[in-house]
């Protein structure tokens, strides 16, 4: 941009290509493995160009499951992951939108107390409260249910903050005009606030969908039945201790399938993804 330095430009391209290769190589190897036979994957060195069993392998993992690994077919697990990711992302957005609206547009006793209660959840990731939370969920008979899988992850201080900040920038004139026209708070919420928040919702959705899809510790505890496993958990269960009897071709096909939905969401909604990432971390 400023001066002409072909050497530096070449260096930069080389570094970036190296970075792209580092990022892509593991995925390429995974993909190649997913197109081979199980026997071929036990011979060293492993192949670097795709084999001919792509359809076979993907059909097997999607609809039959991996033999001896005692997991449901991957299509079932992907459905579980999808339900979990959608419930978490939509649930978080919905309840945060409501509570942020209440906190910004009303003044009522205990308002700040509620705000701080929500704030505290920021400091309580699942990892630090696993046992008591597990106990609550099992006391409520929610083990192996979608509710148990998602509810304990749904409260979100980050999303509430984001919406609160955004509502503060909505001009007061809009509220005044709405009140003059006789619109009540719910009408104002539905006709003005929700449409204005669409971009923020989309950005949050991308981040939260990935967050939900990629959950690990919580589904590991709460799902005990094969047909409730999420994809990420299922793949881990396909690899028993040691590497004696692993069908790597099928495990890698399942891994490709597990990566596909969140990767698609990132690539297709890239603008929102970048926005969401930068905004939620402010």
């Amino acid at each position, binding site marked *: 941009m400023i001066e002409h330095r072909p050497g530096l430009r070449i260096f930069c391209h080389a570094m970036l290509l190296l970075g792209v290769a580092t990022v892509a190589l593991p995925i390429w190897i995974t993909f190649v493995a997913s197109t081979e036979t199980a026997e071929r994957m036990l011979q060293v060195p492993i192949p670097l160009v795709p084999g001919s069993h792509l359809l076979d392998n993907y059909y097997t993992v999607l609809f039959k499951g991996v033999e001896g690994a005692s997991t449901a077919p991957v299509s079932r697990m992907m459905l579980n992951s999808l339900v979990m990711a959608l419930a978490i992302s939509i649930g978080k957005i919905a309840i945060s939108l409501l509570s942020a609206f209440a906190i910004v547009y009303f003044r009522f006793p205990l308002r700040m107390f509620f705000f701080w209660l*929500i704030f505290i959840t920021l400091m309580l990731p699942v990892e630090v409260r696993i046992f008591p939370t597990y106990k609550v969920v099992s006391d409520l008979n929610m083990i192996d249910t979608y509710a148990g899988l998602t509810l304990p992850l749904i409260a979100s201080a980050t999303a509430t903050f984001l919406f609160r900040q955004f509502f503060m920038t909505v001009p007061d004139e809009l509220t005044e005009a709405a009140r003059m026209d006789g619109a009540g708070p719910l009408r104002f919420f539905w006709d003005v606030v929700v449409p204005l928040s669409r971009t923020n919702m989309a950005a949050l959705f991308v981040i939260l969908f*990935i967050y939900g899809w990629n959950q690990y510790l919580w589904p590991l505890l709460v799902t005990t039945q094969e047909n409730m496993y999420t994809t990420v958990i299922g793949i881990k269960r396909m690899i028993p201790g040691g590497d004696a009897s692993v069908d790597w071709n099928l495990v890698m096909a399942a891994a490709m399938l597990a990566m596909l939905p969140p990767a698609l969401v990132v690539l297709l909604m890239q603008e929102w993804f970048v926005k969401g990432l930068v905004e939620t971390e402010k």
Partner: protein
Amino acid sequence: MAAEKRVRFPPGWLPYALVAPQLAITLVFFIWPASQALWQSLLVQDAFGVNVQFVGLLNFRELFADRLYLESFRVTALFSVLVGGGALAMSLVLAACCDYLVRGAKAYQTLLIWPYAVAPAIAAVVWAFIFNPSIGLVTYVLQTWFGYEWNHMLNPAQAMTLIVVASAWRQVSYNFLFFLAGMQAIPKSLLEGAAMDGAGPIKRFATITLPLLSPTMFFLLVVNIVYAFFDTFGVVDASTHGGPVRATEILVYKVYHDGFEAGDLGGSAAQSVVLMAIVVALTVLQFRYIERRVQYG
């Protein structure tokens, strides 16, 4: 917190109904379990929960006298420094290159950011496959080209390397986006002025870009530490299981292992409380930084 809305709706039952869903979930699944963890950390109970005894801070005293726990602290510290340092350094170089090449930057961005979408546990499975002692590609290359034996199931340092690579790999794309955004926000006139004064690209980077990026850098440092502490459970559980000889037993993995597999609830609760204290400290650090940034602009 200072700013408030001028125009409001009259209060009544409605605001309570609006916060109710979030509040209910917060109380049932966050506040209540967390207070339970605090309470349990002061108790000793047997595996069946029949005998419960209040012991004050005994669990904590035992915890910090436990050589294995201190070792797990050391492992976690080393792990987060390696993950944070590695991911930050790599992403800084990539972002600087991307920022320098105005053309093509967007394409590189697209190609570099998607590992963020990959679950840490899946990243671990994939990397463990590449480094698999018997069939892994990297293992093969290391052995045939360099004569280096790789077996992370036996060698503690290699196991640590594996979980660092798997964890940092995903975090590079995250850091990259923030560094790139930070660099693109630096006024071009500053850099052009320095160029006219004869400063080359390296000098400009060191004297202008880096200092201006320091808030971003500090922010990412905290985020990366939080990530290494709390979001890497899946990496360890899906690849090394804390082994060999506890070389990769990070704190979060130990809480899970001691509580669920060894049945030591009081000790595990005490560990949870220590982790909570770490999250609180990191959150406070992060928020203080934000306040500073707002003040000095």
